[in-house]
């Protein structure tokens, strides 16, 4: 079975902290994505990457950065966490050629 794992299911951080959310996929997929999910807003794309060291901004990149040093790993970084970044964060991977995206279980981040 394909698998996307995220480093934490639940995370609590303080305002101003630097936060790292890690995502690993075992599918050898070129494309990886970070979304945030909020009630009533659905999934919104933060960043995506189509290759190692390549990244593109999604719809809501402000306050976030990403890193993809290896094909299987895609990290989301909150440089200085704020309370409005309290949310569910979902990572996904997809092969090239209009294939489905495979999602991890999500990280519920609370910023106090």
């Amino acid at each position, binding site marked *: 079975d394909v698998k996307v794992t995220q480093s934490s299911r639940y995370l609590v951080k303080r305002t101003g902290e630097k936060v790292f959310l890690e995502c690993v996929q075992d599918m050898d997929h070129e494309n990886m994505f970070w979304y945030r999910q909020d009630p009533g807003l659905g999934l919104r794309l933060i960043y995506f990457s189509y290759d190692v060291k390549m990244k593109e901004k999604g719809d809501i990149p402000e306050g976030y950065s990403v890193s993809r040093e290896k094909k299987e790993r895609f990290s989301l970084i909150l440089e200085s966490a704020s309370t409005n970044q309290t949310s569910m964060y979902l990572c996904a991977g997809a092969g090239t050629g*209009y294939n489905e*995206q495979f999602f991890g279980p999500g990280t519920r981040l609370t910023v106090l």
Partner: protein
Amino acid sequence: AQSVTQPDIHITVSEGASLELRCNYSYGATPYLFWYVQSPGQGLQLLLKYFSGDTLVQGIKGFEAEFKRSQSSFNLRKPSVHWSDAAEYFCAVLSQGGSEKLVFGKGTKLTVNP
């Protein structure tokens, strides 16, 4: 720009009843369409997808969806709902431009009464 509308935020059905979840899309060419399901506290799982061909698509868990170009719709259906179908359902369209980005609707939450 592409968009997906799920008109129903919340639907409640009785176990054993039929189900239809609505999805309308805005897209300039032949769309690639998806339905995902999210159980509480979980990530998203693909139910089915439409790329081309037969407009009635069968998926997992007994779900099906019908692509209707004239109505810009891709509604999800199930003839008899089970309590385990209670979840949130998301419709999505593949973004134009050659990337693998998906544009999601805001979701429909399904409650199943015993």
